[in-house]
């Protein structure tokens, strides 16, 4: 295979940046969720949580 360094750098940066961003989003969401009452989180209805 040719250009291995370029391929590793390119794909690695894409996967790395998107993974870090996804993890940061999940952490931020977790931190904020604990501050906000359930009725503000409509996606909880998916799980049958009534928000009470």
């Amino acid at each position: 295979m040719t250009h291995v360094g370029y391929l590793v750098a390119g794909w690695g940066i894409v996967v790395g940046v998107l993974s870090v961003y996804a993890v940061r989003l999940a952490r931020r969401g977790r931190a904020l969720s604990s501050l906000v009452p359930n009725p503000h989180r409509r996606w909880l209805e998916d799980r049958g949580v009534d928000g009470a």
Partner: protein
Amino acid sequence: MATTTDAGLGERDTTGSPRSRLLGIATLTAVAILGVLAFVLTEADVRIHPETGEEFGQFDAVRMLYVHVPLVVVTYLAYGICAVASVGVLVKRTPWWDVTAHTAAEIGTIFCGLVLVTGSIWGRPVWNTWWEWGDVRLMTTLVLFLMFTGYLALRRITDDPRRQARRAAVVALVAVLDIPLVNRSVEWWENRTLHQRSTLGELKIEDLTLFTLFFGFVTAGLVLAWLFLHRFRVGWLERAAIDHGVATAIVERQSETSGAEVRRSVGEEPEEGFVP
């Protein structure tokens, strides 16, 4: 060991839901399949010159395009959503549209940055340069990236959410005008770009290469959908946290005030530290 109640609360304290979890699994599976297609099943771009018999082409650098080109498409898509939502901000003036626009702009800017980086890394072995300042497509893409970076910066410099939303919407609607320039630049300024004309529309590429590229579009779309869903929920929670904090402070203030008034009415002094 966590109790059932603890586990239940932990489950609620996320921006995830069963559907978003399924989307996440589908996205990770698609990324893995794309990796196999791009690095194992597809061939390198090696062609033989008909007269000299020498090998030429992109060789294995072509595998970079299975991530670069799909990123371009989802960048357009994210900024398109931002433009539609920005119209919604100006017309409807509701937080839902503003959170949608902000979400799309942030994710689109991350994708746009990755487009510039992966394009530069691909260009080094194929064009023998990391960057070409005279290339119209590179420059219009850079301008697009900088305008949306400005959009995100603008959202941080004012505290009034309504004014912030309106100003940002106007900037977004101006910035998206650059997208047709980026997309059409290789046709309109053919002699001022290193980029080739579209090979996708004319289907000049081989079957498995084409399939891998389309699978890349699907994968990038799934990544966009997952990130969008969770970023939207984070944006929604940020607003809800502020509203909830303000509402709680008002209730506490009202209860403090009413308590002090009751004490005054019966001839008692308010509690120490109370500031009316």
